């Protein structure tokens, strides 16, 4: 029952900086997800909070206590590992009760707490089994149960679902979410899977090379990515990114999407784009809408037609692939109809759905 606070947290391995000056406050009961590509420092951050990794600079507070120098055992946090890390020589029951036994809780109390955890996670029939006799999903559940029985101040999850198959992963994701709602504890969750991040998080932190790129609610980071990296990292398929030249002709600012495709710069961006030569345009696949006839609404829409390279029917939608500036672009066609390769299709994009990024700094404009 506590908030977690990181102040200026830094981790260096020799000259290599893994985490750089991280400032973060995680309020009580928040589900925070750290997401980013491998080596971005997300796991290191988690391990520093747990006390398994020494910190090179800065401060960590759990509750109101500074825990920099404290051993993991004194921090009252529970960690769930990617490979479960169940004690192989103990039964499910013993695994769950181990932390209480170490804390010298009396056996009756251990029994009730273990019973609680077992019923929360639906492990009643497996109490006497050894970890080797459990399936992946069951092991994961025991690992979570072991974290639950302690009633820690914060749960730390280190990619807990990446060893499970796709179906089980979705199922366990839901369970983790439910568990959080039931237990009302601070959760810090590390993953490289942006779908997990989007579905679980109250707040997402996107990290890259030891820096926080963006913090926000899932919808915020999805709708308003601060830079190209976040834009392409969050969302599936990734946002289409096109580097375009800006042309000024007859007092109009035109953006060159492709060799023969010039579109008007949206009104509200004119002041910002007027002085630039190039700009990065980002459009989500679902915002590139295939249409029958090109509309004349040039004020609010970008429209063009393009030859299709590939069409992938997925049932509920068909993904259309084509090229702009030699970049592969994906469009999502809801209400799909059969599409032939080489077919010319008309597309429209609503101007207010378009993201602009500075060509040099890659930051959102």
């Amino acid at each position, binding site marked *: 029952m506590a908030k977690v606070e990181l102040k200026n947290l830094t981790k260096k391995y020799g000259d290599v900086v893994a985490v750089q000056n991280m400032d973060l406050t995680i309020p009580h009961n928040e589900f925070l997800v750290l997401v980013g590509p491998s080596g971005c420092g997300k796991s290191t951050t988690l391990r520093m909070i747990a006390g398994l990794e020494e910190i090179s600079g800065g401060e960590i507070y759990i509750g109101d206590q500074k825990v920099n120098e404290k*051993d993991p*055992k004194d921090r009252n946090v529970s960690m769930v590992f990617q*490979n479960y*890390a169940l004690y192989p020589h103990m039964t499910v029951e013993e695994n769950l009760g*181990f932390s209480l036994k*170490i804390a010298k809780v009396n056996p009756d109390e251990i029994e009730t707490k273990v019973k609680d955890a077992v019923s929360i996670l639906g492990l009643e029939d497996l109490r006497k089994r050894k970890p080797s006799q459990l399936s992946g999903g069951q092991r994961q559940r025991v690992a979570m149960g072991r974290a639950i029985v302690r009633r820690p101040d914060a749960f730390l999850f280190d990619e807990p679902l990446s060893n499970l198959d796709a179906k089980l992963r979705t199922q366990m994701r839901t369970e983790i979410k439910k568990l959080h709602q039931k237990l009302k504890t601070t959760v810090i969750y590390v993953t490289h899977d942006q779908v997990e991040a989007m579905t679980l998080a109250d707040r997402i932190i996107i990290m890259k090379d030891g820096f926080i790129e963006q913090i926000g609610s899932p919808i915020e980071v999805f709708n308003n990515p601060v830079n190209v990296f976040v834009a392409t990292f969050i969302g599936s398929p990734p946002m289409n990114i096109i580097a375009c030249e800006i042309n000024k002709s007859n007092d109009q600012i035109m953006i060159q999407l492709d060799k023969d495709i010039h579109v008007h710069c949206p009104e509200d961006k004119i002041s910002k784009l007027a002085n630039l030569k190039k700009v990065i345009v980002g459009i989500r696949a679902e915002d590139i809408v295939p249409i029958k006839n090109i509309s004349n609404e040039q004020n609010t829409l970008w429209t063009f037609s393009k030859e299709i390279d590939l069409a992938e029917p997925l049932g509920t939608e068909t993904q259309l692939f084509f090229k702009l500036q030699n970049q592969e672009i994906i469009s999502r066609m809801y209400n799909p109809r059969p599409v032939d390769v080489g077919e010319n299709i008309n597309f429209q994009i609503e101007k207010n759905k378009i993201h602009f990024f500075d060509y040099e700094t890659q930051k959102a404009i």
Partner: protein
Amino acid sequence: MKQIKKIGFWFLVLFLLILICLPGIWIFISAFRPNPEILAKPANWIPDRWTLHQFTQMFSINGYVSVPAFKYLMNSIIISSVSTVIAITIGMMGGYAFARFNFKGKNKIFLSLMLARAVPGISLSLPLFILFAKLGIINTSFGVILVYVAMNVPFTIWLTDGFFRQIPKEMSEVARTDGCTRFQAFWNVELPLAGPGIGAAAIFAFLLSWNEYALASIITRTVHSKTLPIGMMDYLDEFTINWAGMCAIAVVMIIPALILTFIVQKHLVSGLTFGGVKG
């Protein structure tokens, strides 16, 4: 055709097996028959008369003592056990440190430990003798134990390091977030998991001490500290060799070693190959 090949193969295996075991079998047979029969030509494979004479003499069952084998046996047991317990305790801690911690010069220290093993023990015999004589610990169990501990520690470190490495480090990490100190995590989680391996290492160290001859033959002088392998030489007189007695004492030596080897053979192979490929 396939059948014949298979049978041929097994006959070859059997032949090699007998060839390898022959000296052992000969020792066993010879321990239970009178000396003259051992020297008979042509060799008499099945003894005409089986006898426990050598054993009863050795252990002075009928009041007559040929060689004080019981004393030697006790010396062997005490020296091997104590040196094993000490070596495995140190080795376990050392192995854990090498497997889990990073410290300055780690690889060099590990390498030098292994190099210490590469020195032929007998080459140290003279300096060891002089040193021990000056310290006044020649012909004491303590001296022999000291030598065996020094001999076994690098070995037990090497083996236990491999076994600890096999255990994912998350085991101790999760135990530590579960409220354990580093030592509690070691004691409650890592040690039980490495247990079979450490047991194997201990037995291996025990066997090395149990069978050691060269250094013991220099340090031990009298019945006070002689171990079984050295005691065996008591059957060597100026003009005669009591082959039957030697074989009998050899049997006494072999049996515990054989039992222990059977217990650990599985771990022995995994432990040795494991340490071997670790690099």
